[in-house]
C-alpha cells in the first residue's frame, strides 16, 4: 500500500496510459490523493521528490521531466508557506529546473497546479502564461479577506468558452477549498485580458450556479471577479485553488449521506467516484 511509486510503477496501469509526475517534498502534502486521483482517471502516476529533479544522481534517484506527459504541482505548505504561499517553492523550481519546465510545456504536455501548486505556478510566471510568456508574474494569490485559513466546499461555475483541457464538458463543480492565501488578485487590465482571452476557467458561485459576486462565504477569500482558477492561452496549463483530488470518492461530498438516502429510497445505485476525478480524466483523455 505505501510502496514507493517512483521505484515500482503501478501495476494496474494500461500500456498506453500517460505518465503523470506528482511533485512531493519540502512540505507538499497532497501527494497520495493526487496520485490516486490520476490513477483512477487512468494515468500512470509517480510521486517524485523535488530533489529527484533538482539533485538527481547525487541522491541516487534521478527523475526526468521528459519521461512524463502530465506534471502536477500539488497542494501543501511548501517551505511552511513562509514569505508568501508558494514563494520559495517557485524560486526552487525556477532557478533549478525552470528551463526543463518551459520545454515540457512547449512540447505540448499538460501542467496542473492545485492550491499551493497554483500559488507556485503564478509565482514562477507559468500562469497566466499570456501568449506563450511563461516568465512574467502578473497575478498573485494573497491572504484571504477573512483573515484566516479556511476549509469549506465551494460551488464552481466552469467557463465553457475557456480553452482549458482539464474542464472540458464540465459546467458546474463542487470542491473543497483549504487555504489561507487564495485571493486572486491582479491589476484591472490583467483581469480584463484574462477574461477577454477566456483564460478564466472556474469562478466561485452559489448553490444555484450564479456567480458569487464577491459575497462571503460563497467566494471564500475575496478573489477578484470570483476567479478560482485560470489557464494559459493554450489551455494546457491550468491552476486552481480548490482541490479536485479531494473529491475522489462520492463519500467525500459533505452531503453524501443525504444523496445516499435519496438513492437508497429510489432504488438507484450509488455513484462510487467523486466528480473531481473528471478533471484528471480530461487530462488523460487528451493523450488518447
Amino acid at each position, binding site marked *: 500500500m505505501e510502496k514507493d511509486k517512483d521505484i515500482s510503477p503501478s501495476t494496474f496501469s494500461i500500456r498506453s496510459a500517460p505518465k503523470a509526475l506528482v511533485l512531493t517534498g519540502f512540505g507538499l502534502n497532497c501527494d497520495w490523493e493526487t496520485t490516486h486521483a490520476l490513477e483512477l482517471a487512468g494515468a500512470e502516476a509517480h510521486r517524485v521528490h523535488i530533489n529527484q529533479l533538482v539533485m538527481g544522481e547525487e541522491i541516487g534517484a534521478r527523475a526526468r521531466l521528459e519521461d512524463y506527459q502530465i506534471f502536477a504541482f500539488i497542494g501543501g*505548505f511548501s517551505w511552511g508557506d513562509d514569505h508568501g504561499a508558494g514563494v*520559495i517553492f517557485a524560486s526552487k523550481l525556477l532557478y533549478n529546473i525552470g528551463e526543463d519546465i518551459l520545454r515540457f510545456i512547449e512540447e505540448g504536455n499538460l501542467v496542473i497546479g492545485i492550491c499551493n501548486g497554483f500559488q507556485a505556478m503564478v509565482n514562477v510566471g507559468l500562469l497566466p502564461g499570456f501568449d506563450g510568456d511563461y516568465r512574467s508574474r502578473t497575478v498573485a494569490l494573497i491572504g484571504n479577506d477573512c483573515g484566516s485559513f479556511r476549509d469549506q466546499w465551494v460551488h464552481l461555475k466552469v467557463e465553457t468558452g475557456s480553452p482549458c483541457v482539464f474542464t472540458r464538458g464540465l459546467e458546474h463543480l463542487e470542491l473543497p477549498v483549504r487555504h489561507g492565501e487564495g485571493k486572486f*488578485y491582479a491589476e484591472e487590465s490583467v483581469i480584463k485580458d484574462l477574461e477577454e482571452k477566456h483564460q478564466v476557467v472556474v469562478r466561485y458561485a452559489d448553490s444555484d450556479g450564479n456567480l458569487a459576486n464577491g459575497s462571503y462565504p460563497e467566494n471564500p477569500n475575496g478573489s477578484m471577479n470570483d476567479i478560482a482558477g485560470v489557464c494559459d492561452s493554450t489551455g494546457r496549463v491550468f491552476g486552481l485553488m480548490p482541490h479536485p483530488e*479531494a473529491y475522489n470518492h462520492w463519500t467525500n461530498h*459533505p452531503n453524501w449521506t*443525504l444523496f445516499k438516502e435519496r438513492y437508497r429510497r429510489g432504488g438507484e445505485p450509488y455513484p462510487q467516484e467523486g466528480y473531481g476525478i473528471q478533471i484528471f480524466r480530461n487530462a488523460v483523455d487528451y493523450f488518447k
Partner: protein
Amino acid sequence: MVARLEITLKPELFDAEGEAIRRKARDYFNIQLDEVRTIHVLTIDAQLSQEQLESARLQIFTNPVSQISSFKPLAPPFDWAIWIGFRPGVRDNPGSTAVEAMEDLFKIRFQPGESVYTSRLYLLKGKILGRDKRGYRLVERIAKELLANDLIQQWRTYSAEEWNPQEGIGIIVPKVRLAHEPTVSTLPISSDEELQALSQERNLALHPNDVPVIRSYFLRPEVRAARSEVGLSDPTDVELEYISQARSDHCNHNTFQGKFYYRDLGTGETEVVDNIFKTCIQAPTLELKERKGWVVSVLWDNAGVASFDQDTYYVITGETHNSPSNMEAYGGALTGIVGVYRDPMGTGKGSRLIAGTYGYCVGYRDYRGPLKPHLHPRRLLDGVIEGVRDGGNKSGIPTPYGQVFFDHGYMGKCLVFVTALGIMPATVSGTPSEKKTTTAGDLIIMCGGRVGKDGIHGVTASSEIYSEDTPAGHVQIGDPYTQKKMHDFLLEARDRGLIAFITDNGGGGLSSSIGESARFSKGALVELDKVPLKYEGLDLWEIWVSESQERMTVAIKPEDLKRFMQLSEKHEVESTVIGQYTDSGRLHIAYHGETCAYVDLALLESGFPQWEFEAEWVEPEHRGLREPVLSPPDNQRRILLTMLSRPNIASKEWIVRQYDHEVQGTSVVKHLVGAERDVPNDGVVLRPRLESLRGLATAQALNPTYSRIDAYHMTACTIDETVRRLLAVGGSLEHLGGVDNFCWPNIQYDPESNPDGKLKAAQLVRANWALRDYCLGFGIPLLSGKDSMYVDGNLEGDFGERHKVSGLETLQFTGTSVIEDVQRCLTMEAKVPGDFLYVLGVTRNELAGSEYYDLYGYTGLNVPQVKLEEVLPLYQTLEQSTRGEILASVHGIYRGGLGVHLALVAMAGGLGLEVELAKVPAEGVKRDDILLYSESAGRFIVTVAPEDRAEFEEKFKGLPWGCVGMVTENKKLTIRGLEGKVLLNVGLRQLKTAWKKPFGKL
C-alpha cells in the same frame, strides 16, 4: 554585515492581517482604530554582497504584483507603530526557510552564527491614539495583550514624533551569545540531605523517597570501582539529570503506579489500592487483547497499534500540553500537536500520520472578573486554536474532529488535548511492522532538528529570561515544516527496511529516547560532542536533556548507513550518528573521549519506592450536595433559545473551519454536517486507504462537570458518550478502541496548600474504577493513554492576593472503530420530510452537573449513571439497524439533553420536527423541563423512512424506544408537553441565530 529588509502589501491592497488586528482591538479592548497595516521585516545577518541582497529581495522575498519592499524604512505616516520580534533563541521558522531559500538561490551555505531573523512592524492609525500618555497606554496594551507574549517576544513602540524615517526600527539582532565553555561537574553526595538540597538547587525534582536509593547506588563499592576505571567518582550532573528525567512523573507515571490508601468516610471502610495503572488499565486491556484479535500492540510503545484490515494497522495515541500552552498558547499548542504526531511516527518501525484531533478546556471567553491569569482565556483560546491549526495544517494531516469546554476552573491552567492517528503496513520488508529492537552494534542516529536550550527546566530558564541575549528556551515553538520533511524521509527509510528501531525525542530529549531504547540492546555509548547544536555554549547535561523539538532517534545497522544518509540528503533532513548501542549493561556517555556518565541501566528498573497517597471519599450527599428546589419554567421557548446560546452548547464553527479536515482526500463523515454544513456530527469517519471502502471512525467526549458529584460517573458517562458517538456514525461494538487522557488537579494532600487533596485522590481512584468497569463492560481495550496531574494555578486577585484555582477532574476519552463499508455510515441531520422520529433509551431525572442546572447556578445530586445491562442490548440492535441500512439519521443525546439535541437535528436537516414528549421513554419523570434537559446516558434520536418503520420497530421490540413524532417540511421545531399542549414552537432561523450568537462572528 546586517541588512534589514522590509516588505509590505502595496498601499492600495486590503491588508487582511492588519484588519484582523483592528477587529480584535475593538472586540477585546474597545479600542477603535481606523486602520492597521503590517510590514514584514527580515534582518539578514550574513556575509552577502549588495548584489546578492538585492537579488534575494527581488527574486525571492518580493511579489511584484502585490508587494513593495526596501532595505530602507517603508512605513507610511501613522499615529503609532509597534515592532514585535522574537527573543534570542526562540524558534524562528520563517527565518530558517529564508536561509534555505537564499542558500539555494546563491548555492552557498550560511556560516555558523549567520542567520535571518523575522519580525513585524504594525502601523496603527486612529483618532483615539493621541501622542500623550493615554495613547501610549492603549498602544502598550495592544502590544502586550494582543500582539506579543513577553515570554518569547520583545516589542518596541514608536509614536509618530519619535519615529526616525531614515533609521526606522534600526537593526535588531536577537542572536544567542553564550560566553560559556561547556562543562561537566561532579556533585558531592555525602548525605541524603545534601543530595536533596542539590536536587532543589538544580531543579532536578527528585522525589525525597528516591534520594537514598540513588545515593546508595553511587556508594556501592563495585559501582565505585567500575566508575573509577573510566575516571569517575561521585555522580556527574549529566548522570543526575538522566536519573531525574527517567524518574519524573512525566516519564514514569509514578502517580498511576502509586499506592493509594483509600478510605470511604461514609462506611469507614479502608482499602489499599496498589497501582491503578496495573489494575485498572493494564489488566483489563490485556484481558480484552486475548479476546479481540484486532488488538496488535499495546501498553509499551509510543502509541497503540490495532488492525485496520488484513495488511494494514492503525496507530493511535493522545497527549496533553497544558502547562506550556497556559504560558504561551500558540507555541505551546503548536508544539503539542506537532509533538504528538511524533508518537505514531515512532511507533513500531514508524507509521504515516492520517489525522489529529483536539480538545480544549479553558476559562470563559468573556471573563471579566478580578483574577489575572497570565493570558486572558479569550487570548489563550485564540492562541491555542491557531497553534493547532498551523501545526496540523502545515503537517499535511487532517484535523477532522475536536471539542471545546469552558469552565472557570480551567482559568488556573488550561487543558490542551491532542490526539494523533497513523497507519502502517502490517509488514515492513517482510518483518512485523509493530516490532522493533536495538541490538549491540546498531548506530544511534539523531534526525531532524538541532539541539538548543529548549525545554530545559522551565524554572531555571525563566530566571534568565529578561537578560538581553540568553535564550528563552523553556517556551517552545514547534516547526511542522522540518517535521513534515522528516516524516516523509523516515517513511521512505522504513519501506526500504532501514529502520531497526525508532522513537521520538519528546520529554527528556535524548536522555529518554536513548535511555529507553538502550534497554533493548542492554547498553549504549553516546558521544555528546557529535550532537549538532543550534548554537555553542551548552553544558553537557543540557545537550543530554534538551527537549528541542522535531527530532527522532533511530537505530540502524552500520551497513545501511550509506543508504540511510543518501535518503536523508534527498529529503534535506539532518541526520547524525551520535553513538552506538552496546550490550555493556550501561549507559555510557562521553564528550570528546572523556566519560561524563556511566550508569547501570538496571538502576532504573528496581529499588525505587512507590509514591503514596491518602485518599478519602465522601459521598456527595455528605458533602452537602442536594437537588435544587426549582419549579418548572413558564417560558419553554426562551429556555431553549438560552440553552442554545450557552458557550458549552453554542456553535464553534469558527474553529472547525480553520482546520484542514480534508487533506489526504480521506474524508467521509466530516465534523460539520447538514444542509448548511454547520452542525457538529457525533463522530467523524476517514477512509485512510483510498483504494478501499473500509473506514476508520473516531470520536471523543469529556464531561468534567459530573466530577462535581462523582468522578466515577463522570468517567462512566464519558466512555458511554464516546461509544454512542461511534455507533451513531456506523461504528461497531466488536471493534471499539479507547484512549484515556486524565487531567487532574494535585492529589497530594497538604493541610495548607491542598486541603482537599485526599478527596481529589479518591476521585482519581474512583475514575479509574469506572474506567476498568466500563472498558470491560463495553469491551474497549485501552490502546493508549496518558495522565497529566497538577491542573492548578495560583491567580492574582484585585488586591494583590492569590487564589488557588483548580481544574475540574477531567477525562477525555477517545474512541475508534473500524467500518467495513463507509457507504453505510450515517450522519445526524433529519433528512426527509415525512420520516418518523424516535427516541431510544430511557430518560430519568438526572440533571446534576447538567447544562440546565448550570444555567441556574446549581450542581444537584442526581448525576447521570450508565446501566450497562440496559444500554448494551439497545446498542447491539442499533448497530444491526445501521448495518441493515434502515435508518436515515442517528444522533446521540449528550450535554444539554433532549431539547438541545432535537434542535440540533432539526437545524442540521433544515427541516421541522413535531415532537410529543409523552411518547419519550422515561422513568420517574413527570416534568417537561426535566424530560427536555436531563442528561441521562444511553439515548439516541433516530429518524426512519416510512417504508422502514415496520422493520425498525420489529427489531427494537422489548427495548426502550418511542416514536415521538415526525420530520416536517415547515422548518419549525414544535414540541408538545406531557399534557399534550404545545410547549414551544420555534422557527429554525431563530434557533440557529440563538445557537450562533456567542461565537458566530468570529
